[in-house]
């Protein structure tokens, strides 16, 4: 029985031409009557988050910031400090799991969990490659926007449960910030959805493919498409609490914001969730505006670059590279800019980004209706 299941699984893996071939094969993969394929399907994004956070997220950020600041970064553990993050993780695992006596036990423990779940569940609709998506929902984009918002509950639980005034400040700031910035972010993504005419992530990607490569991307679809792109990028920085909008964890003001009291693995989980959401918003922006898994290279006569660089494996490469590029921009901004004040942050959201998001929404609608 298991051999037949394996052949069932391996044939589309090798071919992988039709949409979602890999993930559908995984869903159908049962071992001894157990839906093992579904578990693997869910584990792939988890492994991806863990690997990318370790390598690019932590080590990469430290090296990039070191490069910007005229220093070397981690150099001691392993060649060029490559094993530094492994050592850090080992340290975090060994650390005592401190639970403050005056903390609300239940909320304190469950906070990082909710935070990570919110960030991780969004990966279900992330089209890693034309052949792989966790769940091909027809409301994928809507689901992604909605599920990321669950993080707010986790932050509030962590901040309130810590029973620390700084944590409380961080949590309240964070909730105000994320809830506010959802509005321009969602409006900007709606512009993308309008251009595609669908909320299905795979369909949005598919509609942006073509032999001219990047010219088919929605960023170049209409003359005002750069506006929602920019608005979503700025709002996404605020949604994942990155500088210059990192006021919920403003180190110099609120010590560490909502995770002041956390240590050991709970702290690591919060960090993992943060890096998870960083990649999530970066990949959403690349799916909606930059063609997701489509190759940006155009076909030039007999040099069919676009055809050569498209396919299931290439697709995963392009999506991850586009995501990494936006994470690099996030890091770049973080190590360059100071932090905004709370009221300036709200001003930017309600008086700048939201009106412009509405304007771009209306203009995109007009463009979609009147321009064929």
């Amino acid at each position: 029985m298991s051999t037949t299941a394996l052949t069932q699984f391996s044939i589309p893996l090798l071919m992988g031409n039709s949409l979602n071939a890999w993930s559908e094969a995984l869903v159908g993969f049962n071992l001894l009557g157990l839906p093992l394929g579904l578990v693997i399907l869910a584990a792939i994004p988890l492994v991806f988050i863990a690997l990318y956070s370790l390598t690019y997220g932590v080590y990469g950020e430290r090296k990039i910031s070191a490069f910007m600041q005229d220093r070397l970064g981690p150099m001691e553990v392993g060649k060029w400090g490559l094993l530094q993050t492994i050592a850090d993780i080992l340290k975090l695992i060994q650390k005592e799991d401190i639970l403050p006596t005056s903390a609300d036990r239940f909320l304190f423990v469950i906070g990082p969990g909710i935070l990570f779940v919110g960030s991780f569940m969004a990966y279900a609709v992330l089209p890693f490659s034309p052949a792989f998506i966790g769940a091909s929902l027809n409301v994928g984009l809507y689901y992604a926007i909605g599920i990321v918002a669950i993080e707010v509950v986790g932050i509030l639980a962590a901040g309130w449960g810590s029973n620390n005034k700084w944590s409380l400040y961080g949590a309240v700031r964070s909730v105000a910030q994320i809830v506010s910035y959802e509005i321009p972010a969602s409006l900007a993504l709606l512009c993308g959805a309008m251009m595609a005419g669908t909320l299905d992530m795979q369909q949005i990607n598919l509609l942006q493919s073509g032999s001219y490569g990047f010219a088919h991307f929605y960023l170049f679809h209409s003359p005002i498409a750069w506006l929602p792109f920019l608005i979503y990028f700025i709002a996404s920085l605020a949604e994942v609490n990155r500088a210059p909008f990192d006021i919920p964890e403003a180190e110099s003001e609120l010590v560490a914001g909502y995770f002041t009291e956390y240590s050991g693995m709970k702290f690591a989980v919060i960090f993992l969730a943060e890096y998870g959401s960083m990649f999530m918003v970066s990949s959403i922006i690349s799916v909606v505006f930059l063609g997701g898994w489509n190759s940006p290279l155009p076909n030039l006569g007999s040099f069919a670059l676009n055809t050569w660089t498209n396919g299931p494996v290439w697709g995963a490469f392009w999506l991850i590279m586009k995501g990494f590029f936006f994470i690099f921009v996030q890091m770049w901004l973080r190590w360059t800019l100071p932090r905004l004040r709370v009221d300036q942050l709200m001003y930017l959201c309600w008086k700048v980004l939201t009106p412009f998001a509405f304007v771009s929404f209306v203009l995109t609608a007009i463009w979609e209706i009147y321009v064929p």
Partner: protein
Amino acid sequence: MQELDTVGQGSVRVTRKSDKLVIVEKDLATEQMVLAMGPQHPSTHGVLKLECLTDGEVITEAVPCLGYLHRCFEKCCENVDYPAIVPYTDRLDYLSAMNSEFAYAMAVEKLLDIEIPRRVEFIRVLVSELNRIASHLVAIGTYGIDLGAFTPFLFCFRDREIILGLLEWASGARMLYNYIWIGGLAYDVPADFLQRVREFVNYFRPKTLELNNLLTSNEIFLKRTHGIGIMPPEVAINYGWSGPMLRGSGVKWDLRRNDPYSIYPELDFKVAVPDGKNSVIGDCLSRHLVRAIEMEESLKIIEQCIDKMPSSEGFNSRSAIPKRIRPKAGEVYSRAENPRGELGFYIESDGKSTKPVRCKARSSCFVNLSAMKDLSKGQLIPDLVAIIGSIDIVLGEVDR
């Protein structure tokens, strides 16, 4: 029940409930909260504690609680000989130890009434201006961190490291030098020292531009500092402010000019005051700008010192140091312009002992910090951080 501390109308009490300490905040309105900012807090620049009465993010009142770094400086001074006090003065303002030593040495020399060799004066001014740049680099860098910009801090520390290297070369220590002694110097500067300092000046000039591009002209930085924590000049004078803080409020007061000492009258430099074009006079941005301009003025002074420095031929840095320091009975107050303001030493001698009867330090940080209560009223927590950063305190000097 034991009452610990009182802030505004509210009071924090600690009660003991079956082996557990319970903190009770009494007499507070529902929306009020007592927030203890420090002594362990990233942006209080040491072990300063601010008890803030907050209403949401708005601070109704903030009271500085001092003394966490109190080391009985003045009592120690009464128990050691005059030369042995010099290392203690290093530990007052540890970011500008040369300037503190300079101020103390001048006070005792005034008491002894001795003549100092000219080359010693030049070296003293040279090293203390180098130290002033190092100190302002820390002030500007940490101010960036307070506002969330991390990179300027490391740029500043990279350049400060060169100054520390130079001073280490001259004195043997990185931060706490014990270099300026009463009546002279511990050593003459090394052979190539002046050449290296000139190289540093040439290296550092473009770097100040880079720093200003990264931090001072940053839109978010301006938004965070422009018009925040305004101190009118009259109030600043009444509080006894000095140094860049007072000049930030538009008062042209620099002891190097207004009460000249050492060789400063011979040197050409401007007293930095904000012109009110880029900033509101007296706000955080003005103080930051004053420090930025002062660094360039210090570079000018250093260049002049190198040019005018008398030759080292037949020079002994310890020639004027008295064998035994036992001043005549009397008292003296001597002050100097430190990077953070006026550092004054009041020394009293009974004429019999080799130890001072009384040695009081008038520290600039302590006086500047006293205005905290006025400055913080009605500000947001992020603005409070910006204000503390602009005051540029060193707790070693506040608590002594």
